[in-house]
């Protein structure tokens, strides 16, 4: 057993931290809040140059071929920087869906492009029913004339407005269980009948869209994998993306703890730094406990995703349940311990607070994942 990062991983962390401090300071993040794209082409190109857009894709598809633990390091640093832009949607959601379910030629074409920063692909699976299980997928895909016609509405789709293509989860049959009859389609964003609307979100660093499909015609080649068997790969993508999200959340939580500790050392009340009062000190200690546990359970999940795949759903749900609560608590404590200043727009805390809240409910909240854990441990 060796449950720590390798030297290479620590180097990746140092590189990433420095990169984001230089390229993604909060001034940049704030510029992106009202920017519809949420990212600049320049910044995106730099990520590509670092090799981070293809970090976990095989080299055959233009990637670097690293593993999920490596990705975890990078995601922590992105979370620390509340990095805006479609990394999560394109590299993880769309990219992983291609990796899991795409045909060889789909992978070759699109993953290479994603890695190079030349294209973005997102995943459109959630719908207005706001579910995270297979029953979520109700958008209809009807077969006919050498292809499929897709009709329905996808909601909370990450960065659909800037994506070049969407992996769309659709229902091709009403099987015995909701898990049966789901299929995945790769649909170009400019397909006729496909309309994207950017939604106004609390966390402005992460863009969400409504995607409406009205009788969108796609050829048979758009189908990813076999018909009606799309749920299994989709579930795997979601579990993996969930673990990556947890890592990002850990990075944000650590940053809040760092900001809060620094503030508690210098802010004086009643003649002493507030950090000398147990009311502040003990709460900061609680934050540390949450942050450390959040990391531990996330690192474990990241390792499992690569090494013990059968355990991945349980590990992902354990992590998401824990980290959702932890980041919420740490973010709330951070604001409280900063007092009034933490409630201002000009302080960076709210960027993290809102990211924490958004992440808490992405792919299911703690209650949802605890119930999933209960099922997976056979309660």
């Amino acid at each position, binding site marked *: 057993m060796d449950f720590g990062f390798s030297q290479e991983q620590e180097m990746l962390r140092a590189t990433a931290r420095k990169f984001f401090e230089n390229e993604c300071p909060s001034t940049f993040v704030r510029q992106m809040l009202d920017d519809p794209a949420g990212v600049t082409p320049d910044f995106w190109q730099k990520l590509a140059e670092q090799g981070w857009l293809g970090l976990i894709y095989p080299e055959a598809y233009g990637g670097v071929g690293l593993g999920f633990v490596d990705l975890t390091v990078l995601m922590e640093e992105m979370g620390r920087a509340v990095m805006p832009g479609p990394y999560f949607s394109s590299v993880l959601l769309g990219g992983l869906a291609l990796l899991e379910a795409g045909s060889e030629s789909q992978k070759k074409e699109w993953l290479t492009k994603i890695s190079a920063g030349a294209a973005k692909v997102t995943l459109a699976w*959630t719908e*207005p*029913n*706001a*579910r995270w*299980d297979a*029953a979520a997928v109700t958008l209809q895909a009807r077969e006919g004339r050498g292809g499929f016609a897709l009709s329905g509405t996808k*909601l*909370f789709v990450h960065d659909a407005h800037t994506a070049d293509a969407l992996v769309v989860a659709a229902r091709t049959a009403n099987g015995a269980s909701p898990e049966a009859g789901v299929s995945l389609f790769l649909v170009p964003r400019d397909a006729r009948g496909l309309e994207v*609307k950017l*939604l*106004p*979100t*609390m*966390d402005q660093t992460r863009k*969400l869209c*409504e995607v409406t499909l009205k009788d969108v015609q796609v050829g048979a080649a758009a189908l990813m994998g076999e018909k009606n068997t799309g749920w299994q790969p989709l579930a795997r993508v979601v579990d993996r993306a969930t673990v990556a999200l947890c890592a990002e959340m850990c990075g944000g939580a650590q940053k809040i703890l760092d900001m809060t500790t620094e503030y508690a050392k210098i802010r*004086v*009340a*009643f*003649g002493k730094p507030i950090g000398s*009062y147990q*009311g*502040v000190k003990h709460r900061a200690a609680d934050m540390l406990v949450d942050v450390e546990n959040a990391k531990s359970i996330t690192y474990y999940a990241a390792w499992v995703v690569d090494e013990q795949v059968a355990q991945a759903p349980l590990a992902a749900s354990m992590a998401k349940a824990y980290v959702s609560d932890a980041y*919420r608590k740490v973010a*709330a404590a951070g*604001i*409280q311990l900063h*007092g*009034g200043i*933490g*409630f*201002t*727009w*000009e302080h960076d*805390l*709210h960027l993290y*607070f*809102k990211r924490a*809240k*958004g992440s*808490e*409910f*992405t792919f299911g*909240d703690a*209650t949802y994942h605890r119930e999933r854990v209960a099922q997976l441990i056979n309660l």
Partner: protein
Amino acid sequence: MDFRLTREQESFRDEVRAWLRQNLPKEWTSRVISGPDVPRVEAYKFLREWQKRLFDAGFIGLTWPKEYGGRGLTFMEEFILHEEMALAKAPPVLNILGIAMAGPTIIAYGTEEQKKRYPPKILSCEEIWCQGYSEPNAGSDLASLQTRAVRDGDHFVVNGQKVWTSIAQAADWMMLLARTDPDAPKHKGITYFLLDMHSPGVSVRPLRQITGDAEFNEVFFENVRVPRENVLGGVNNGWQVGITTLMYERLALGFGLQVRLRIALDALVGLAKRTKKNGDVATRDPIVRQKLAQLWIDTEAFKYTGARAITKLLRGEMPGAEASTGKIWWCETHQRLQDIAMELQGPYHQLMGGTDWALDQGLWQYTFLRSRANSVEGGTTEIQKNIIGERVLGLPKG
């Protein structure tokens, strides 16, 4: 012990109820789904008129003495008024700082001239008041404030800065605490001024909050001249006067908070009944039921604790332990309520006003973010716990 209203109280309640039925502005109530925390900044003009109408109907200043424009009634009528306004989802009273803090403090400490000059215009909302206490380096430790007021003939010249000043954009007057003796121990060199916000040298800079809204402000003073007669309660006696104001604030908050919490809870239950969770109505989910029931219980407990405090006041006694817990309890419950409002919405919680997909036009998103300040404004939870520990339980100072 009797929780029921007396016949007189019932008739007052009916009077309020009937008036509200007639006068409630529909354009407001249709917006208020998730409680009264509609961004007030958007509505100053409307709220000014609304208070005037309440005043004309005799519902403002119920507990104030008749000679200063009040009705000389008890806190019970005040309580009833607030409760009825809440149930009817009526708009809030804009000049609340004037009514709850400035007015009573002036009546308690003012000269006869001051008592004639200021209170009536507070009630009618002709003059809006704000509170100039907190400073960038004097938050919880209020007495360490640095804004200076230096005597110059018949005036004091004020320089410095206040922060977290709500309603300053619209205010005509400020309750200002400033240091007049920098050499005295920190609690002893402070004076309470009635400051005309239209004086030269006063500038207001809205402070944008995490809600995106600018409810609070920074207020800067550059050689602002305040006439001597605007000192309240004597030079260097400001700490004493200011503390009185804070006591009134706590009392007023107590009334208002109970009602606001109930409105928010009713709205939340309404939301839950309209929300689906895993394909079924959220209120059928056993875990959601537990959380909502707990909020219901906590909201009721808050009300009864308030009733115990009011009873003491009505009996002419000083409220004890039961009065000190309100603010903490309200913060805890209200923030939890807002957290649950987000949880119920799941991914919809991200949607702000401006899309049809947003639930209740995105008002919950505002109230959720706004609620984070609850445990900081009006005395942080940490300070409230110190106060309870030291003043109520008699534990030694740290």
